[in-house]
Every structure is written in C-alpha cells, then in structure tokens.
C-alpha cells in the first residue's frame, strides 16, 4: 500500500499526520529549551553573592553630632542630621541619576552637582529630604536609625522609613 497515510482525524475536524506531529514535537521541545536557556542566562547574569559594603553603618557616638548639624559621610552616602526633634538619617544619593549630593551650609539646603536638584533639610513647611527644585523624581529617603547596645548611632541604608520619625537620644 504505497499511498497509505497515517492520518488521524482530530476531534476538531482537522487532519494531523505523522510529519506534522514530529514538526510540532520538535518545535515544542526547542521552544522549551530556548525558554530554559533564557532563564539560565538570566540567573547566571544575576550574581547571588555580592561583595558590596554592608547596608548597616555605625555612625559613632551621638555626642559627636552637635544640635542643628548636618553631617555627610561620603563613603557611606548618608547624612546624619541632629535636629531639635532628634536624630535622623537621609540618603545622600540623588534620586535622579544616582550622583552624590552635598550639604550647602550657606544656603541651608542639599544640592546635587550633576543636574541641579535641590532638597530641603529644615525649610519650615517642607519635610527634610523633600525636593525644592530640579529633575529629581522623589525626595531623599529617610533611613532607619537606632542606638546599638554600645550606645552608637546605627543606620540601615537598606530600610527606608516614613519621614518625620526622629530618633530621640
């Protein structure tokens, strides 16, 4: 029977021969393999262990920060501010494109050298960290602060808190 075909009528009415079955099987397994490769590539390219500095910073004794002072630590990228209400920590990395901002004591503001964003510190009606002007889309974040057992000021750069939560010492 040379013209015998292995045709099976499917329930939806279409025909389905052996070649089509193998083509679909091959394409299907290739797509599964391609999807697996994409997942593998993504996982491989995302490092699981990072040798980056710890997000928790020991900022030293509270007594070393006089009242109404703004102290920038360039290495950790945080401001430690001792206001009348208590201590708080602001992120010093600009929310626009990641430049390091700086404290301008003569103007009483925080300013970014890259694209001119300005942030409030103790500007009356503005909360500390709020944007005054510039391209920055978000205010500077408030980081969680607490006192360690040894009485040191600790800051967690990985945890942001709501503004106006001061640490009283």
């Amino acid at each position, binding site marked *: 029977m040379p013209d015998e075909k292995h045709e099976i009528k499917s329930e939806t009415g279409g025909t389905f021969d052996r070649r089509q079955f193998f083509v679909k099987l091959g394409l299907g397994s290739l797509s599964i393999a391609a999807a697996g490769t994409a997942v593998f590539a*993504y996982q491989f*390219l*995302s*490092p699981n262990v*990072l*040798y*980056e500095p710890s997000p928790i910073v020991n900022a030293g004794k509270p007594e070393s920060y006089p009242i109404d002072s703004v102290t920038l630590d360039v290495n950790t990228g945080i401001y430690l501010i001792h206001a009348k209400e208590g201590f708080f920590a602001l992120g010093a990395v600009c929310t*626009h*494109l*990641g*430049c390091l901002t700086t404290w301008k004591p003569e103007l009483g503001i925080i300013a970014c050298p*890259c694209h001119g964003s300005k942030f409030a510190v103790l500007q009356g009606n503005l909360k500390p960290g709020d944007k005054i002007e510039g391209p920055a889309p978000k205010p500077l974040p408030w980081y969680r602060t607490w006192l360690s057992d040894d009485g040191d000021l600790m800051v967690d750069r990985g945890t942001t808190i709501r503004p106006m939560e001061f640490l009283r010492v």
Partner: protein
Amino acid sequence: MAKTVDQYFDDLRDTRVWRSIFRSGAGSSTLKRSLAIQQNVFLHLFATKVRRRMLSFSATWYLGTLTLGTFLMLVVTGILLMLYYHPSVPQAYADTKDLQFVVSSGLFLRNLHRWSAHAMVFLVFAHMFKVFYRGAYRPPREFNWVIGIVLLLVTLLLSYTGYLLPWDQLAYWAITVGSNIASAVPVFGDKIHFMLLGGNLVNANALLRFYVLHCMILPLAAMFFVAIHFWRIRKDGGLYAHSSEPAVLRKNAAEVETPKEAR
C-alpha cells in the same frame, strides 16, 4: 631584455606555491581581475565590478571606509592596551597611569585609541548624514540602513563601556548616571540595571562586565554586522548612484525617445 618589476610579479604569481594560495594566477584580463575578487575570502563580500564614478571621493567622501579604518585602528591599539591593563578595582586606575607614564609608547597608543574612538563616532554620524541626504537609504537599501542603525548603537555602546575602564572619577560618575538611565525602563528597569552592573553599585563586577563587553562581546557584534553591511552593498545593487534611480532612468529614456528638435 631586462624584465620590468611587473613581469617579476607575474612570474611570482605563476609559481606553484602562489597558485596554490591564490587560484586566479597572473594576468590582468577582466576574467582574472574578477577572479581575484571572487576567490578571496575577504574581497568576495564586495562586488567584482564597481562604477568608476562611485570610487571617486565626491561620491561617498569615503566615510564608510574611513569608519572601518578607525575601527581597525581601535582593534589593534585596543589589543595592545589589553596587555598592560587589569580590569580590577585596585589596579585599573594605576594601570591607566602606567600606560601614560611608564610603558614605552603607552601614551601614544592610549591617545591613538581615544582619538580614534572619537573619530569613529564622528565618522559614523557623518556617514549616516551623507547616506540620508543622498537618499541612499531608500529601497532596495532600506535593510542595510537598519543594519547601519544597529552598528551606530554598537559604536555608542563600545564608546560607553570603554568610558568606565580608566576607573577615575569621570568614569565612575558617568557610568553611575548612565546606568541609572537604564533603571528608567518600565517594569524591568531595576533588573536591567542590576544585570548590567552585576550588583547595585558601580563596583568590581561592573568594571569586569564592562571590560568583557568592551573587549569581546561588542567588537565581535560589530564585526558580524559590518560583514553583513558590506555584503548587502553588493546584494542591493552596489553603491547608490543618483543616475541609476528609476525616475532618472525614465526621464533619460523619455528624452532619448522624444528629442527636442523633433517636437
């Protein structure tokens, strides 16, 4: 009678060793000259015949060829710079300084690499403007324009990844700002930023990733697309000439059929 220099070259081209390497052999007939192009692995990308007018400076200003020239200079100087540069945080900046002040000809090679990079970006844009204003991007060459856009992006990425490697303040902040632009992509922005830098900060992983991109992945991508770009010139009917535009051809044909005196 003494032989001329050309005749000595012809004798060389007829030796068995030469013929085993270059099959076409001596002679300057049209056939031999076509074979010299067709049978060469590099030259066979190009057309065997080119309009003489298209080889003149005014036709293209040689902008594409000059871009290839700067690319080849960047490959050669880049490979030489790799012999003294370690892509590691403690050493990268010191190696850059060593290249400038300690390594013999290091200053020359680094400056050549830097100026060629600037020249290449300039020439790519000049090439694109020339192609655009001559209308050479139109069918049947539209796909080659698209490959040209890919090559523009590869050129800019090569420039951007090379920017980080000196590991100075300019490099660090340029890559901080540039990679933060990638975070602006909707939904996946932060993931792209993380994968590009291999971390949350511009750090050792970012330096190594940019080095691999700059020295391996992007140059290979550039060579791949440049090969297609050149091959497509031949496949799309050679370099663009205004005189072979269908509209111009129809106009010329009409003028031949109805000369002014006959009207």
